[in-house]
């Protein structure tokens, strides 16, 4: 039962990464592109967690945590660059 759920979930998360890639390419504004990148990093966390369930290991946990933290920091950095013209004032 878990195998079929995993196949379905891999398909769904891969499709949602493609959809956020479409928004990343189409734009039209800077805010939309930043939001699409943030969504892609959240989806990458979901993919890594699914990979950990499929492989039956816990060694992917640190990778998921680091990608979650870097996604947030990069979103804030992009937004501050657009808002203030500088990241650290």
């Amino acid at each position, binding site marked *: 039962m878990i195998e079929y759920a995993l196949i379905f*979930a891999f398909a*769904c998360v891969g499709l949602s990464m493609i959809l956020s890639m479409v928004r990343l390419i189409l734009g039209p504004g800077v805010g939309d592109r930043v939001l699409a990148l943030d*969504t892609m990093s959240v*989806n990458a966390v979901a993919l890594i967690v699914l990979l950990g369930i499929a492989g039956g290991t*816990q060694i992917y946990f640190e990778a998921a945590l680091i990608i979650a933290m870097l996604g947030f920091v990069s979103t804030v950095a992009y*937004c501050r660059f657009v*808002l203030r013209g500088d990241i650290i004032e």
Partner: protein
Amino acid sequence: MTLETVIEGLVALTIVIGAIFTLVGSYGLVKLDTPMPRLHAPTKAGTLGVGAMLIASILFHFATDGGSLHELLIMAFLFVTAPISAHFVAKVHIHREHTAQELPDPPLDNVWATRDVAPDEDMAGDQVPEPSGGR
């Protein structure tokens, strides 16, 4: 019906719920037509989807190989940071797309904080409005 079957069903159910919510979040990102509604879909539905998958991971590892609760770290981090990044993206949208005349009046100050810059310091470079009322 043994305990393993129940846990397996729970894991499969939470995985499917998480997958559907993640897909709905990204589909809303493409489907909705203006930036402010577009902000809602991934920051709420996407975060809920990832949270459901992390619950599935906790249950699965407890059932198979003596798991721990450290997926809760990712969950807490994502649930705390998703509103913050959404707030920043909304500020970017206000800063780039609107002039101060189109916006509703802020409750306490004269202008919205993202529009409160001197004209020669405005890095966006377009449509710098005069603030309504004295500073």
